[in-house]
């Protein structure tokens, strides 16, 4: 960790109704040594915003729910305004292990690439079979529509260099955001790397109703096709 100071590494956490987990996630990220944490509360109806603030994160709030992609983009914009050199995005339900951040940002630190994609599919231990299947389907469509094969197109655990954060400018608001980022990596010829990450599927994270379901999957696919056509 030499070329970039830790004070210029920002962790962005989009969160929607994550009152029950957000403080623990923030504390874990702090514990891993990263203090610049931006939580974007995406129009939650619970106390996500206040809990994030109490835990010491920079809390930003969408007045209405705009989707995971929109919230992530807001967080990235905020990080850029605050002078970030490296931006890490991760989920707010605790499924990602903040101890993986170091491995995730290392290739960017070494200037080997612009984007690092955390991939769950290189180590599927503990991952429900339907998630594995859904991810393979999503990977196929991402490759077929956007031209780049990656092993986990739907992972929200990623790291971006400042350059990548400036270049990537997708208009996707919801779950299609993750695939759109892959498209932009391909279009702008950004260097990327995939790093295996640990995933913790807890009762809490699996019980959330707004997660990608079959219907949301179809919606995501429709949005991906729409973005290509218009």
């Amino acid at each position, binding site marked *: 960790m030499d070329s970039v100071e830790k004070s210029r590494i920002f962790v962005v956490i989009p969160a929607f109704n994550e009152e029950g987990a957000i403080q623990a996630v923030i504390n874990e990220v702090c514990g891993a040594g990263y203090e610049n944490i931006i939580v974007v509360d995406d129009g939650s109806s619970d106390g996500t915003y206040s809990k994030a603030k109490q835990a010491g994160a920079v809390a930003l709030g969408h007045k209405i729910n705009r989707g995971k992609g929109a919230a992530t983009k*807001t967080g990235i914009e905020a990080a850029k305004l605050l002078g970030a050199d490296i931006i890490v995005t991760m989920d707010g339900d605790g499924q990602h292990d903040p101890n993986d951040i170091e491995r995730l940002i290392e290739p960017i630190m070494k200037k080997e690439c612009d984007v690092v994609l955390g991939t769950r599919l290189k180590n599927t231990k503990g991952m429900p079979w339907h998630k594995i299947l859904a991810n393979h389907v999503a990977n196929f469509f991402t490759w077929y529509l956007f031209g780049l094969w990656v092993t986990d197109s739907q992972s929200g655990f990623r790291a971006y260099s400042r350059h990548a954060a400036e270049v990537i400018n997708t208009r996707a608001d919801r779950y299609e955001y993750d695939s759109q980022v892959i498209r932009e990596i391909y279009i702008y010829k950004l260097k990327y790397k995939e790093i295996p990450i640990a995933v913790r599927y807890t009762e809490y994270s699996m019980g959330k109703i707004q997660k990608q379901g079959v219907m949301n999957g179809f919606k995501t696919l429709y949005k991906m096709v729409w973005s290509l056509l218009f």
Partner: protein
Amino acid sequence: MRFHIYQVVISVISAIMIYQGVTNYIKGKNNPTLLKLLARIAVWGSMALITIFPNISNVAAKIIGIEGNINAVILIGFIFVFLMMFKLLSAIERLEQDLSIVTRNDALKRINEEEK
């Protein structure tokens, strides 16, 4: 020329709809645009024309190359509905994106102010 009751009813409704569109356009009510007015005149006008002069649909069938005037009318109707749907979806998409931008700018206001 003998008129049936349905021809009178549809013609009157079409005339009212076109009149309303024209007056809205002149008075500037409900964000009028020339495109909206022309679309209204095209839809209601052609409906009235086909009702009053059913033989017109034979001309349309000949132009499109479909046998049977009813099929030609249905096809034109479908194409029009698809065009409207496409326009609506595009408008919704644009509005959604604008909404996200406004929401984002509002969320970033605090940081922007602190930066100044």
